[in-house]
């Protein structure tokens, strides 16, 4: 019996996995192409003289004149038809070449590699922090719907989610940096620098996941199988561990995939606010300087990150929920 179970378990967990991964891979390709095309079109249609902006990015606003702008225009072939530039970019992308920054002249991939690490560190910390705050609070609230904890956490969650991330960030800076002086207001380098930006992102993530967890737990605790688990003699603790956790975790994890949109959008704002040298910070600078390859590269990496993170969510759901594997 034991050997039978052991030999069957891995094949079960793998069934249906191939289709899932292939589908996500296809999506990643589609995202890369669409994000790249869209950013290309958008940067070309922005008002203002592109060559002038790039020249300003290179030499500074005070130093730029129309001669410098013309030089840039000629160098980057900005007066040539857009289609040629687009096809050139696409061909380079197929060879995994993201081009060079128009401002610094460095390969985009080098710049991104450096910044992505900082952003990922921040994002991972934010997600872990939000998982420590949100779901446990939601599970506790869900066990007593309409109780004090439920009402209180609902209010807090609504306020936190309604405030834009820069407002939450500013409030945290005012409290912890200005009033209390515990943490630095901005910068990068020490662990203390990462606490406030991570917390800013985590609070809004936790606000949503605590409510999802609360609803999931309330639904589980009213379900017939949860009642049956009690009446068959498992007791409150075992019922929660064996039948409550897994079933309540499913919606929380699944919703995490949707929340990553917020995370990626929040990273841009929060990094700018806290002067965090990450990919979001880089994107804002690249847009100001019309550094098209940088914009394309950054948006591309963010899009692919979204697909990758959702793939991870899918894998966790796949592992948590045996019903998915039969499909």
């Amino acid at each position, binding site marked *: *019996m*034991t050997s039978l179970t052991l030999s*069957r378990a891995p094949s079960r967990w793998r069934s249906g996995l191939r289709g899932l991964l292939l589908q996500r891979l296809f999506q990643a390709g589609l995202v890369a192409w669409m994000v790249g095309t869209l950013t290309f079109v958008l940067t070309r249609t922005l008002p203002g003289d592109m060559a002038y902006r790039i020249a300003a990015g290179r030499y500074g606003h005070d130093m730029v004149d129309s001669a410098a702008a013309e030089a840039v225009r000629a160098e980057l072939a900005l007066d040539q038809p857009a289609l040629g530039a687009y096809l050139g970019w696409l061909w380079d992308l197929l060879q995994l070449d993201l081009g060079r920054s128009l401002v610094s002249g460095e390969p985009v991939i080098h710049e991104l590699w450096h910044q992505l690490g900082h952003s990922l560190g921040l994002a991972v910390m934010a997600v872990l922090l939000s998982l420590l705050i949100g779901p446990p609070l939601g599970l506790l609230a869900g066990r007593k719907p309409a109780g004090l904890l439920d009402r209180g956490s609902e209010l807090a969650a609504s306020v936190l989610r309604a405030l834009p991330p820069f407002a939450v960030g500013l409030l945290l800076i005012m409290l912890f940096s200005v009033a209390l002086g515990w943490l630095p207001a901005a910068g990068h380098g020490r662990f203390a620098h990462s606490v406030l930006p991570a917390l800013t992102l985590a609070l809004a993530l936790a606000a949503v996941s605590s409510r999802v967890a609360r609803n999931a737990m309330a639904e589980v605790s009213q*379900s*017939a*199988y949860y*009642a*049956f*688990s*009690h*009446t*068959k*003699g*498992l*007791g409150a603790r*075992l019922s929660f561990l*064996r*039948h409550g956790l*897994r*079933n309540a975790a*499913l919606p929380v994890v699944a919703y995490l995939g949707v929340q990553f949109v917020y995370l990626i959008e929040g990273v841009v704002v929060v990094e700018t606010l806290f002067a965090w040298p990450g990919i979001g910070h880089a994107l804002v600078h690249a847009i100001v300087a019309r550094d098209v390859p940088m914009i394309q590269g950054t948006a591309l990496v963010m899009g692919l990150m979204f697909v990758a993170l959702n793939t991870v969510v899918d894998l966790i759901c796949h592992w*948590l*929920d*045996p*019903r998915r594997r*039969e499909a």
Partner: protein
Amino acid sequence: MSHPLLQATDLTIQGDGVTIAPFSLNLGSGERLTLLGETGSGKSLIAQAIMGTLPRGLTTSGELLIDGTRYAAADVAARRTLWGRRLALLPQEPWHALDPTMRAAAQITESHRHVAGLARADARQATQHDLTELGLEDAGGKLPGELSGGMAQRVAFAAASAGGAPIVIADEPTKGLDAPRRDAVVELLARTPRAGGALLTITHDIDVARRLGGEVVILRQGQVVERGPAQQVLSDPQTEYGRRLLGAEPSRWPAPPPLTSAADATPVVTARGLAKSRGGRLLFQDLDVSVGPGEIVGVVGPSGCGKSTLGDMLLGLASCDAGEIEHAPGHRLGLQKLYQDPPAAFSSHWRLSRLLDDLVRRHDLERSAIAPLMERLGLDGRLLVRRPGEISGGELQRFAILRVLLLKPRLLFADEPTSRLDPITQQQTLSLLVELARERHCGVMLVSHDPALIARVCDRQLALGEATNVNGPAASARPLETASA
């Protein structure tokens, strides 16, 4: 009297508009007691009061003696330690009571391990033994969603009784199961008293009560109406209500009004050579069906044989793989369906008056037709201000019939319309449906898993089942010429 296992003395339940009069029972080893009654009779509440699982807002008093220990009925917390060990509860609709994300064997094993306290390997072995004994060898690795109703019932039984509780309480154990599965459940329940335990069954199914035997208590609105040995109470009831309850068994129903329409009337629907497969399995082929105006055609067959699919095809809601379907001329609203679960067929947030208004406005119907129909269906006008969840299942199903009849249907596909209702309500609802269908020349296809009911109500029947055997001896799919039954 054998060694008493479960004794209740003056058990009462109060609150939320519910009153259960003092109720006493005494169950010894090897004995069976069945509480019989319609919805709202309080039979389930008595089981919940004994278990200690009454919904919030209800209070209980009285005294319980469970396997030699005395408990105040109000002291609910004290009985929690008995769950699974002294008292086992077989839940209603066990396919909902099994954790949908855990495999069947694991749900039995956890009872052996954590309730009976066996070691991991022993618990696995005990589970394997249970599965074999219940004929579920292949089901251990399946998820509850992949089990049939009968299989889920047996898995739940094994999970609930793994702790070795001598007292088993079964709450509506046959709800939602078809006739052959019902017999298997009765057989399953009979194991407990045979092994020296005590069995308390809650049911509205008279046939189940009869097969279980032992003592029977008929309950109505929280009062004991009649009580005694099963053979006596269920063959020769002494009270008027007892006779009415037994009279509601389909085999004792009065015959429906005869079919009066002309023998050569054009059928409302004619289908020839129908075939349908689902999931690679052939449901039926070369199936001929026709329904005349006002005719009641029964559709029987085991779960999953394609009864509902056939209905959807005849109503034009599903496509067929082969064959042709011909409807009598008329508006497409003339093809209607009556659903199994009334609450699921109504939008729960609106008052019934609003729901009817919407229907009348949407289809430009005669508003004046509502009142007389409501009277025919025995529906009080005061019900209109309530929401679907605030009236009984029987009343709501009659509202569903009202809603369908307002559309002047030519063909009505009634998909187990009364399987969730108790016997007396079932009889009332069906006889009204038949009467009105006859009057309005509406052809009805009635699906049921109760053969006695079909035999009683229908002019003829169509048996689906073995794909190759549709037109075999069991299937009285007549030749296409309509003749009055």
